[in-house]
């Protein structure tokens, strides 16, 4: 064997192995980066074109009225409004509110909203009950029936509804 040739070959092999192990850069990773950046650039360019449309956008504007306004009224004032709304919904549906009870005040310091809770007992015709439930949904405020119990009243063609109703108050004016 020609020793000079062997030395050259061995030297090149060592250089190549070191190059592969330590210096070779991951081209496919760079190519993936290029594709990702290009896609982000296209998105930015599209955003630039449609910029005017985004200036006045308010995606959650329609939700702002769902909560009782905590910045203008106290917790108990909001509870009073909530009770009024429930009573008027029942009255409109010709339901009799026999009992209404404020649940324990649950104020969460860290949350951006407070929970308003009422325990309500009403009696009405079955169809009227559905109207009452429907009226609470038509109201601009979000009212949630958390616990719902319906029973037939003895010897009367009436349904008794016992439910825990939830509503929500914002701690500051949410727009």
């Amino acid at each position: 064997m020609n020793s000079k040739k062997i030395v050259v070959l061995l030297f090149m092999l060592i250089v190549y192995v070191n190059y592969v192990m330590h210096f070779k850069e991951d081209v496919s990773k760079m190519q993936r980066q290029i594709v990702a950046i290009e896609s982000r650039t296209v998105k930015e360019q599209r955003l630039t074109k449609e910029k005017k449309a985004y200036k006045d956008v308010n995606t959650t504007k329609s939700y702002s009225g769902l909560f009782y306004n905590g910045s203008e009224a106290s917790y108990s004032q909001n509870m009073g409004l909530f009770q009024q709304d429930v009573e008027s919904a029942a009255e409109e549906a010709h339901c009799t509110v026999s009992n209404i009870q404020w649940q324990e005040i649950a104020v969460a310091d860290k949350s951006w909203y407070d929970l308003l809770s009422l325990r309500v007992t009403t009696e009405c015709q079955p169809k009227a009950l559905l109207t009452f439930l429907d009226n609470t949904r038509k109201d601009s405020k979000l009212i949630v029936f958390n616990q719902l119990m319906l029973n037939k009243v003895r010897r009367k063609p009436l349904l008794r509804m016992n439910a825990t109703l939830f509503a929500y108050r914002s701690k500051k004016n949410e727009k």
Partner: protein
Amino acid sequence: MQLKKLILSKFIYILPANESFFFKVKFEKKVKLTDELIALNYKKHAPYKNPNFKTLTENQNLYIWFYEQEINSKLIIPESYLLFNFFKEKYANALLNIDLGNSHCILIIKNSLLVNSYTMLEDDKNIVDMERNRFGIEQYIKIDKSRYIEIKREAVESLSLQDLYKWTDINVQKEGLFANIVNKIAYPLALLLFFTMAVEQYHVREVKANLAKVEEAYTLAKSKNDDIREKINSEEKKEEKWLNFVHKELPYEDSLTIFTHISKAFNEKKFTFESFTIVGSKLKITIKTQEDFIEGLNVLNTIDVLKDVALKYTNKKRHVATYEATLLSKGLEL
């Protein structure tokens, strides 16, 4: 097939039967002899002075074809073997007398093995009879010149790659093979490695330059939207906040919708609700009916928003049954 045609047309040389002398040796066991040993042992049988020869070892038989003039071809196939190879299946025990034009070729095949082959200037019936008696062969085939030309062409075309390989002169020197290979490939391989690294580095440089260009374009495009980015981020935060609210506070469909679903499902069935309760994800219904209680279970199972429907209590005397189910977590869509 293309490769075979190329080999047949460019590299093959058919050694004419009348320009060669056939000699056969049979060994007791399979042996492999070098050309030097063959020349030393069997050269004396050739009718030429300083003959060249072509050999083939098949099983325990050594076939030698001596010829006078040196031929510069890597693939020499003796014509007598070519014709034998063509006829050995068809005439396993036969004496073939082939008219080559200016001479006659005698092929003696016994048990599909080539026993002897030679050429005669004249067609001598006595010699033919003598050979048949000598080898105990009854079948005698005579082939005229026109048929011979046709057969020769067919025989060449029917040669398989395996047949061609048998006649190639490729001698691999095992001794010093590694050293030879290393000597031959050392510089080209070193150059190839260097070239590979150089090409890869060039490619990396190109990709890096492209990446920098793309990043610059992105930074520029992004800077144009800086004025509304805060607005978009705040909108996204607000949306996320509302989504969290829905997931936390409204995990199930509202009670009214569930009540409506169940009422509709029991429509036109003879069931009367005694009580209907929803607490969290648990639903409990007490129903009065003259129907089979399982029917009520089947109806509840058809409602999409309910799962784990169970018949918890029945009183056949009072015709009352209590069912329980779990509400599917769904949430409201914003």
